[in-house]
């Protein structure tokens, strides 16, 4: 009986060592990718980190680590998807509604906030940049929009702007669709901020279709503008 227990113990110990080695290697690859260096086995690392996401996240919270796990996973996926993003001809840009100006009163719709592009917030710039790449922009108030929009738009790739946790969560949920995430520089669901340089850099990676760039990101429906917010556009 003790011999059987010993065999099981050996197998468990071997599996634990192998698992820890996989996690250590995956984290090392993620850290390397987050520093912008080339790293091998990016897909393997993503699979390992995704499988162990919840326990790792709890462990991460207890460790004195500066970079959040979500940021590491987002940058790793970005590095992994760079090539696929460049090949994508039809994509969508998903940005959170919390990037809007506090005074913004743009109405909502089934396809997100109908941005009037008044220039009060950074969304106008994102619209312009995405329009040049021929990608449609959707300003979302929650992640429940994402599966609906992906089903309706059938994009070849998606650029996500969100807080690191939401960004990583949506990237994991979208699975096979090539995604690229730009985490917010200030979180908190109100008056958040993003580095436009990073958004521009991400959009420069995207494929450029010839046909639909002009009409790419016109506001949906009536496209009603809010006169109290914007008097110039």
């Amino acid at each position, binding site marked *: 009986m*003790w011999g*059987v*227990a*010993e*065999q*099981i*113990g*050996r197998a*468990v*110990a071997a599996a634990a060592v192998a698992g820890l080695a996989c996690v250590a290697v995956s984290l090392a690859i993620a850290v390397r990718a987050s520093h912008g260096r080339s790293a091998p086995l990016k897909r393997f690392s993503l699979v390992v980190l995704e499988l162990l*996401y*919840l326990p790792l996240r709890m462990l991460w919270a207890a460790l004195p680590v500066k970079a959040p796990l979500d940021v590491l996973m987002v940058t790793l996926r970005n590095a992994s998807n760079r090539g696929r993003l460049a090949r994508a001809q039809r994509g969508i840009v998903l940005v959170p*509604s*919390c990037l809007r100006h*506090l*005074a*913004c*009163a743009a*109405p*909502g*719709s*089934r396809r997100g906030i109908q941005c009037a592009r008044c220039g009060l917030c950074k969304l106008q710039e994102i619209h312009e940049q995405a329009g040049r790449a021929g990608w449609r922009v959707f300003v*979302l*108030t*929650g*992640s*429940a*929009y994402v599966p*609906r929009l992906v089903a309706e738009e059938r994009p070849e790739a998606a650029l996500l702007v969100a*807080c690191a946790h939401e960004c990583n969560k949506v990237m994991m949920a979208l699975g096979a669709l090539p995604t690229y995430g730009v985490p917010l520089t200030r*979180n*908190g*669901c*109100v*008056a958040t901020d993003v580095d436009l340089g990073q958004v521009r850099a991400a959009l420069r990676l995207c494929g450029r279709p010839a046909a639909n760039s002009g009409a790419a990101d016109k506001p949906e429906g009536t496209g009603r503008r809010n006169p109290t917010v914007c008097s110039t556009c």
Partner: protein
Amino acid sequence: MLPVVFKVIFGALGVLSLLAAAVLVCLVTATVGLLVAYRRSGAVAWPRVAILGGAVLYSPIALVLRRLGRDGRLLDRFLIEAANRVGATAFSHAGPCRLLAVPQCLRARDCRARLDPRLGYRCVRCGKCRLGELAERAEREGFHFCIAPGDGCVKRLAKELGVDAAIGVACAAELSGAMLAGLRMGVAARGVPLASDGCFETTADLDLVKEAMAQCGGSPSR
């Protein structure tokens, strides 16, 4: 040949692994049983076991439900119900500082409420949606009322006010995580999942929210 000490260590590890596997099998069986019973009756029999099992086995159970083509919200609703039951006593005896947080997606599509960075959307009570009515009721019951643009706003406000009890209305996926976090932090919380979600023109059973407000204990905060 391994030294005897390693044989003893591996043997002990083997025994512990077998015990852990047995505990895991029991937890899986109990959680699945409770989930099936919840699906039939809408009640959670052993809420603490349900929360432990649901939290530990969340990802695999969600994956199996998706593969089976079942509604993924079932597991979240199960966890919310379990958390409501675990926290029921604390909720009914909670102190006077209380918060009612509802999501901004309950607003009408042409809502003109302004966003306050601290307090969320400030309802103008125009009557286009039912949040005005809820805000008035919340005031009468002594609740701070927050139409939240996101969970970050609720966390910040709850911390700032030092709330004794909170009622959260949200989609099941968001609410289950928040309820488990509330239990860990010791906040007496009651969760009311949205009747229809999707982040736009959502609906909730406001009678359940009013019922929860009536059940919340302590004296009013205002």
